[in-house]
């Protein structure tokens, strides 16, 4: 664990720089410990794969005082796994949603069914949120699904698109430019400012995808529009 200055009102705590469940769990544990310690002058934290950035008010606490306090925190006892049940997100891996599935299967010389099977049977962890409000970086993808980003990013990736990039998978919270390989779409909004909890994902949470067909997609989409769909029903 290494503490680095990050301007006049932030501190970065860097762990070993690798994408792994263990390192990410440490980030989460330190985040919990900092929240619990309720240190004066701290505004908020930004957890990432292998680092935690702590924002503070320099008029209330100094860099040296805060870094010392953080170094002295014992977070080994913090729970590193979330108590929450696994979130199961319905995804339709068919056209017109699975924009890159066919090409990807050809490139990898495997069937589209195999991609869907592997993608939906893996349990992922939310490593961090970023890029767009509510966008979760989920990992790690099994080696067989490791995919490079598209050479030419799309100018418009539709909301709800499920994509692959490197060892990560994720869902676009809104229409946005993007270079991930799109293999399906979910009708469930991952960010909805009107919802009591606008964010579907939380760092540290477990996530799995559940394949649905086109008909199920549209039925679910209609239910969401009508307001009769309950987010709680996604927790197994």
């Amino acid at each position, binding site marked *: 664990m290494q503490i*680095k*200055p*990050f*301007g*006049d*009102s*932030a501190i*970065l705590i*860097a762990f070993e*720089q*690798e*994408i792994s469940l263990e390192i990410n769990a440490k980030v989460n544990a330190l985040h919990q410990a900092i929240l619990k310690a309720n240190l004066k002058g701290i*505004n*908020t*934290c*930004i*957890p*990432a*794969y*292998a*680092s935690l*950035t702590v*924002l503070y008010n*320099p*008029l209330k606490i*100094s*860099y040296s005082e805060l870094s010392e306090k953080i170094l002295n925190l014992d977070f080994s006892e913090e729970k590193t796994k979330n108590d929450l049940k696994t979130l199961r997100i319905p995804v339709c891996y068919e056209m017109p949603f699975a924009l890159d599935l066919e090409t990807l299967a050809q490139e990898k010389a495997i069937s589209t069914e195999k991609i869907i099977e592997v993608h939906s049977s893996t349990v992922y962890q939310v490593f*961090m*949120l*970023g*890029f*767009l*409000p*509510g*966008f979760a*970086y989920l990992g790690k993808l099994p080696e067989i699904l490791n995919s490079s980003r598209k050479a030419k990013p799309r100018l418009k990736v539709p909301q709800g698109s499920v994509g692959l990039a490197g060892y990560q998978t994720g869902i676009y*919270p*809104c229409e*946005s430019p993007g270079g991930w390989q799109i293999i399906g779409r979910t009708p469930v909004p991952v*960010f909805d*400012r009107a919802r009591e909890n*606008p*964010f579907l*994902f939380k*760092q540290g949470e477990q996530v799995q995808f559940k394949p649905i067909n086109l008909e199920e997609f549209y039925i679910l989409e209609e239910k969401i529009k009508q307001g009769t769909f309950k987010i709680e029903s996604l927790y197994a």
Partner: protein
Amino acid sequence: MLKKHIRIFFEKAGLETTVQDLGRSDYLAYGVPQSGAMDKFAYRIANHLLDNPINTPVLEITYLAPNILIEGDCQIALTGANLSPKLNGKTLPMYEAVNIQESAKLSFGNIQNGCRTYLAIRGNWLLEQHLGSCSTLNNSKLGKAIQKGDELFVEPFARIPKRIFPKKFRPTYPEEVNIRVLPAPEFEDFDKQSIGFFFSQTYTISKESNRIGYRLQEVLPNFSPQTELISSATLPGTIQITSAGQAIVLLADAQTTGGYPRIAQVITADLDKFAQLKPNDKIRFQLVTWEEARRILSKKMSVLAFNLA
């Protein structure tokens, strides 16, 4: 009794006119940018001149200004960039509360200095908050970006005696500025040559500059990026270096994480300066210590505290 609302009607939208307040900092862990007024100093003064509560929305007007029709008795104040504001065709003084009787047309002319003007109106803005703020973030449908024909409503408060912000404390927005910075997490990873260039170069603000960030024209010579970084937090004021050696200064609407090395971080007190820079303006970076940055911030806040008390 129903009070008559002030109506703000946009006959012309301007280049980028948005509703802004202090922004949202509680959702950074969920990927939501801070947003908020780019020049918080000018923002605070504008609302203070009208004795509005902290965090009252204002209109942030960028470079090419809108034409606005204001209907209803009210008090308004303009701060920030001087875009030659006119009220019913007559020069409108900035940095002071101005009374409007019945209705008035607000228009703008030549750009005298700066880039962003703040229009405050005394009263309660009838706007919905999204994630605790009225600030605009276009791509995520948060807040409100103004379009031609839009109208906003403000519930007026009782008139207050005129307030003026002292001339000697008003910023002047030169086209060449010194930006003070502190090290960011990857500062030590840059070689001496790159660091030397970064601090000796006079950088030019490029056309690719907006509320998300400002790209600087000059690139680090012979820059060879290290292996790809694992994504980590970025903040307003973070200066990233792309693999091509280009510096990007991230600002209010920037995403909360990124993968480029972070060379330096603009001190909090100097962030407002960026709001008033426009393409082709020049900047130089100067390294200061944490203690200096804190002292500069404290001094700036005391100007506000003293004159806004």
